[in-house]
């Protein structure tokens, strides 16, 4: 009898484990075995951040937006959809395709000042105990962003001209302030943070790109609240933000950089999937963009709440494509105003 008891317990354990394997696999193929645990544990922490950000946006909206630098109307779908299918089939969209859209020949300021971009820092959103958003089939934002970031790194490395850094190499927890610190200490010249969106109420796939700035839009603030969760910044830190916003060179550059990323991401993604929506370039108070002193953007490259998109994100080719579009966006930004650019690129590519 003494012998029987552990035996029985072991059987029970074994049964539970086998069931676990089964349920896990159901989830992989998108059948929901049981209701997954809810997604609202860090509610209070997030609430605090949300209020801080709201407060900030009110504070800032008052005085700062008087500057003519940011027209409140954002770049949105209307312009891009005017030229939908005139695009070449295979290669990423060429800069000329939307040169008009970008506002023409103006040169990035960094170039005007003779600054050269040498170090690019890629930041895969979330990681470790912070999964970011999770799709219904269990796909985690942190895993997808890491994979895309690594693919992007490989692509950019091939040029041999840039030093490509990544904030995290593995599935590790990395607070936002440490990411900022990394970008600063490694003297990155360009910073891109990669994320996935989640729109619980609408099952659509959207793409949007952010640069740092105040926002009055509710949805944007909620997103910022999500993406900022896990940072150790408090209300007092936001005071500093306002001071920092004065760095208009960085902001203007970031805006151009964001536009370039958004255009490449959206126009190219649209060719693969007609059901993707362009939510344009926006400002949002993302902490990760704030502390970085160089042009910095946060791209929501895809949307995990969309079922088809979640399946796609699980394919290697789709993630590689996203990396490819980001690569094109970065290069377009870097090479804007350079006449020989197109020729260069076609020879640099297989």
């Amino acid at each position, binding site marked *: 009898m003494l012998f029987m008891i552990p035996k029985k317990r*072991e059987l029970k*354990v*074994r049964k*539970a*484990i*086998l*069931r*676990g*394997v*089964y349920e*896990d*696999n159901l989830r*992989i*193929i998108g059948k929901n075995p049981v209701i997954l645990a809810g997604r609202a544990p860090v509610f209070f922490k997030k609430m605090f951040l949300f209020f801080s950000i709201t407060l900030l946006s009110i504070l800032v909206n008052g005085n700062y937006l008087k500057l003519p630098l940011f027209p409140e109307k954002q770049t949105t779908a209307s312009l891009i959809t005017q030229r939908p299918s005139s695009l070449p089939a295979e290669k990423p969209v060429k800069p000329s395709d939307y040169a008009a859209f970008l506002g023409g020949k103006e040169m990035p300021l960094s170039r005007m000042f003779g600054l050269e971009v040498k170090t690019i820092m890629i930041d895969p959103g979330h990681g470790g*105990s912070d999964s970011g958003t999770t799709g219904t*089939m269990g*796909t*985690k934002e942190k*895993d*997808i962003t890491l*994979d895309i970031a690594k693919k992007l790194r490989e692509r950019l490395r091939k040029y041999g001209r840039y030093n490509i850094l990544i904030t995290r*190499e*593995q*599935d590790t927890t990395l607070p936002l302030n440490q990411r900022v610190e990394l970008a600063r200490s490694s003297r990155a010249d360009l910073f891109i943070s990669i994320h996935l969106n989640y729109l619980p109420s609408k099952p659509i796939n959207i793409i949007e790109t952010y640069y740092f700035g105040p926002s009055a839009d509710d949805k944007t603030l909620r997103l910022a609240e999500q993406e900022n969760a896990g940072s150790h910044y408090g209300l007092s830190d936001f005071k500093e933000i306002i001071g920092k916003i004065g760095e208009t060179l960085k902001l203007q550059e970031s805006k151009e950089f964001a536009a370039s990323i958004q255009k490449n991401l959206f126009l190219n993604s649209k060719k693969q999937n007609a059901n993707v929506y362009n939510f344009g370039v926006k400002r949002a108070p993302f902490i990760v963009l704030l502390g970085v002193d160089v042009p910095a953007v946060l791209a929501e490259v895809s949307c995990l709440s969309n079922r088809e998109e979640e*399946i796609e*994100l*699980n*394919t*290697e*080719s789709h*993630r*590689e494509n996203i990396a490819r579009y980001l690569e094109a966006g970065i290069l377009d930004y870097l090479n804007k105003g350079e006449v020989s650019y197109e020729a260069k690129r076609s020879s640099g590519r297989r």
Partner: protein
Amino acid sequence: MKQKEAQGEGNILFVGIDLGTSRSSISASNNTREWIESYVGWPKDFISLQVVGKPVLFGAEALKNRLSLDLCRPLEHGVIKEGIEKSEEAVKEIIKHLIELAKPQPEQKIYAVVGVPADTLKVNKLAIRKAVSEFAHSLMVVSEPFAVAYGMNLLNNSLVIDIGAGTTDLCIMHGTIPSEEDQKTILTAGDYIDEQLYSYLTEKYPNSKFNKNMVRQFKEQYSFVREISEDIRVEIPVDGKPVMHDIKNEVKRACESILPALVETTTEMIARFDPEFQVKIKNNIVLAGGGSLIRGLREYLQNALKEYGPCNVTCVEDPLFSGSNGALKLAQDMPAKYWEPL
């Protein structure tokens, strides 16, 4: 766990597959055990096809003919990679080939459990399912160290450390299917040792000619940490003539390069548990994967972890098949109702 008899075991072939970065193996309920190196090669052109005489080659044979082939090691660094469609295709070919090696009867249904490196599972589970589904009637994917643990009946209070080629996967079992926190992957494993050894040897013998493959063979033959009494000398060509080289120190340094991360991660993972469980887990640590063959590694780890109380580290008996055997056991134990037709 004998439900399967009811549905007539004769019509079902259970297979466990370990899909690895460097080697993949299959264990089947008809008692076949087979493994191949995870290389797939397709003839580059018509002439190469004539030369090699087959549309696709695997493992050692593919490596041998690599000049005529488009060679792909699809799971490098634990993730389906490079060439994308090509590597997805390569995974498919490996699975197909392994299942053929298991020699199923024509009318037999194949129920497969596939173990993959824990990191691969995160973003590639659908791709892997897709690759396998053409060749199986029903299938499940699990993480590799979990399959090892299950196969060895280490269901509770144990830690499996699977030192493979691309990754070292750690997995703590505590009576349930391991959650994400129970699993950790570090990128220092066999391939990393190879890279280190290669660079140490290039540094020490700049005029000698060796390649990555030779270096890996040296490692597999002589790997050790800490001390051994024997000398390690190998023949390497210099200006076309074979010359003996002393590589003992380099082999040691390269093998030891994985130790710090290994000890740190192990300690970290155990520390998350209550002291009572820590003791139990520490007496139940199992090394698996090709890296577990490094001489002295078991003793080193046991010593390094002893600092905080007693500890027992063992090695799996058969690192080549411990993953696929575990996957097979999972397949055979799985209640019939959980096998869904694809």
